[in-house]
């Protein structure tokens, strides 16, 4: 311990990464404490936005470090460790966390003015927001698979608290279902984690006798070749069911539409854009170990099946959907399915597509949720049949909602088109014609029904006469940032992302 502290204080070039890892985790904790102490609305809003901004800056620095160094770790025995896959998850957490904190200020202030929440709720909301950010940041940087599990379970608990902010009937029901389904799912994941750990300590790999190391992902990977193949298969199935539940992969997705539609909108954006990715990340981690231990065929097949089922169920649900936020939630099921497919297809373009899709979805989905939050506050309903003529009542929000919608269904020139194209071409390249064909069919259904809902809401005449009003700058700025990103990433993919994809590919060999 003393040694590692000394090595940090030495502050050499190689150690800046480890300092970043620690300070990244400390920022939301400190901010949470400040919120608890200050308790004044204005002050805690400022603290939260500032800390989210700080998290974004540190995460970006860390990602640059990862791109240069391939991996970053802190302390002896590497309790904190980040590599290409961590970077891919860190980027959405920090990015969406930041825009979501700005949007929170406007959204919660309006709820406050409407008398839906009071001072106590506001403090609780920002405490929860910071805690949520912390637990999510811990997932990609924890090397120990046990700690990763604890962090993911903690994200469930914190997000349940955030959904419970309202004492409405629907919110209580959603929170209860979410808590029960996600916790049982994660019990399966822990079962799988313990089996992997057992396989690791009994594999006869040297130096894995100590329990801390046996659970470390890096050590599991190093000894992957020696793991018992049958144990690995069994453990991976449990992990896939467990983390798949939390990632919203069908058929374990039942909690997702409820929770995502009843949460406060900025939290919906975090749940959809970021939290689902954290569980996908956990699946990827074990997929890598399983691939190294028994070859890729086994886990690839399972991931492809879950992916196709998710996209299919999402297609059916979006077609019949009547509630705006639930439609967006099912669209998240679809996109998680596509990510799972992409990993299952494998190959460089599969992995590259998965990485791009994680990031692209994390940009487009929060945009949609923010816009839908403004719209539902304005129209006081989430029923799509009641919402007409957004472009007339709220021109900017309507335009951005349309851009987000076009991006989400995979229209060129927006960002999601690129990643979906990569994923599908990797599907054909890996000879998965049935799966790719089915997914294309489902995507067409989703495209048609999503666009039908979207066009009806955006155009047409409002049912009730309303003034033009876009709900203030703070509600618009986060959406503008995200909309700009959907367009920029549609044309231009930064070199860094490709480097990350190459590094990620290395791990899967």
């Amino acid at each position, binding site marked *: 311990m003393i040694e590692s502290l000394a090595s940090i204080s030495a502050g050499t070039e190689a150690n800046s990464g480890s300092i970043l890892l620690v300070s990244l985790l400390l920022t939301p904790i400190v901010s949470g404490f400040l919120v608890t102490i200050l308790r004044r609305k204005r002050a805690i809003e400022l603290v939260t936005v500032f800390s989210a901004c700080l998290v974004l800056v540190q995460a970006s620095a860390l990602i640059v470090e990862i791109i240069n160094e391939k991996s970053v770790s802190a302390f002896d025995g590497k309790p904190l460790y980040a590599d290409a896959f961590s970077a891919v998850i860190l980027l959405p957490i920090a990015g969406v966390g930041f825009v979501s904190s700005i949007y929170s200020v406007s959204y919660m202030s309006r709820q406050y003015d409407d008398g839906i929440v009071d001072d106590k709720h506001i403090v609780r909301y920002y405490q929860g927001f910071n805690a949520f950010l912390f637990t999510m940041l811990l997932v990609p940087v924890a090397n120990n698979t046990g700690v990763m599990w604890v962090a993911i379970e903690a994200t469930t608990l914190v997000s349940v608290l955030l959904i*419970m902010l309202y004492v409405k009937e*629907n919110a209580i029901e959603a929170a209860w*279902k979410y808590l*029960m389904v996600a916790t049982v799912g994660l019990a399966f994941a822990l079962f799988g984690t*313990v089996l992997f750990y057992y396989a690791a300590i009994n594999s006869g790999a040297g130096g894995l006798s100590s329990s801390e190391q046996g659970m470390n992902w890096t050590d599991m990977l190093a000894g992957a070749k020696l793991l018992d193949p049958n144990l690995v298969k069994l453990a991976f199935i449990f992990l896939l069911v467990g983390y798949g539940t939390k990632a919203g992969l069908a058929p374990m997705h039942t909690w997702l539409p409820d929770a995502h539609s009843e949460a406060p909108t900025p939290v919906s954006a975090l749940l959809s854009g970021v939290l689902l990715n954290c569980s996908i990340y956990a699946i990827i981690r074990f997929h890598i170990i399983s691939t190294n231990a028994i070859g890729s065929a086994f886990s690839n097949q399972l991931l492809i099946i879950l992916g196709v089922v998710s996209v299919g169920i999402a297609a059916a649900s979006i077609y019949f959907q*009547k509630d705006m936020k639930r439609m967006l939630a099912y669209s998240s099921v679809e996109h998680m399915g596509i990510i799972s497919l992409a990993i299952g297809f494998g190959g460089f373009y599969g992995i590259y597509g998965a990485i791009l899709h994680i990031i692209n979805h994390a940009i487009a989905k929060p945009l949609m949720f923010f816009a839908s939050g403004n719209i539902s506050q304005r129209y006081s309903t989430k029923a799509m049949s009641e919402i007409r003529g957004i472009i007339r009542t709220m021109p900017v929000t309507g335009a951005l909602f349309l851009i987000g919608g076009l991006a989400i269904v995979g229209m060129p020139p927006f960002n999601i088109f690129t990643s979906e194209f990569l994923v599908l071409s990797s599907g054909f390249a890996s000879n998965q014609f049935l799966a790719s064909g089915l997914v294309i069919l489902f995507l067409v259904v989703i495209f048609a029904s999503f666009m039908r809902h979207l066009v009806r809401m955006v155009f047409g005449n409002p049912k009730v006469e309303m003034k033009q009003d876009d709900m203030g700058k703070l509600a618009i700025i986060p959406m503008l940032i995200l909309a700009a990103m959907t367009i920029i990433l549609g044309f231009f993919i930064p070199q860094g992302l490709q480097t990350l994809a190459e590094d990620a590919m290395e791990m899967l060999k």
Partner: protein
Amino acid sequence: MDFPQFDILAVSSALLLVTTFGVVVRQGFLDWLSAYRYQAIALSAVTAIIAYVTGIWEIYIAAALTLAIKAIIIPKVLTFVTQKIKLEVKIEENPYVSLRLSVLISAVLVALSYFLVLEIPIKSDPVVAAYLPLSISLFLIGLFIMVIRRMALNQVVGLLIIENGLFLFATALTHGTSLIIEIGIFVDILVGVIISAILLVRISHTFDTLDIGKLESLKDS
């Protein structure tokens, strides 16, 4: 000394199973909680036995934590909530599967888990042989309880039984993951129970029942 040790293992497994069946056969809210408390005490004893057999001191700490958190704090919290809830009927009146049938099915689940363990490729030693099937039975019975009962409180108890099964699984198979992680898991459980306690109170306030079957306003279309 091998023989008496093995005896302790068998007796303690039987004890743990009996306490688990206590939750299956009972109807009243407070009865479940007391059955759960006995189960947690038995689990703590089993954990201490594992610690004694393997000679790893960290497992004693896990046993003590089990006793403190699962046998004392969690039942206290849930009992407090049960007393606070203003409902006239505090029993499970008609579960989806009748009590008699559910005992039978639970027994089948126990038998099943003994067969399942044979399929898992593991090195067997006395501790594993005695407790591993037991841990899987707890896991399955917990899941079964969550599915067949209507009351929200019983779902929490089912979840806690699943978790006890997992804890036993991890301790028997790997002699405990590291202590820090176990403490993390304990904290997660404790917070989870407190959150579900708050939710229980809110459900009973808003819906005037703890019947999960009545929570069905959130649906597609």
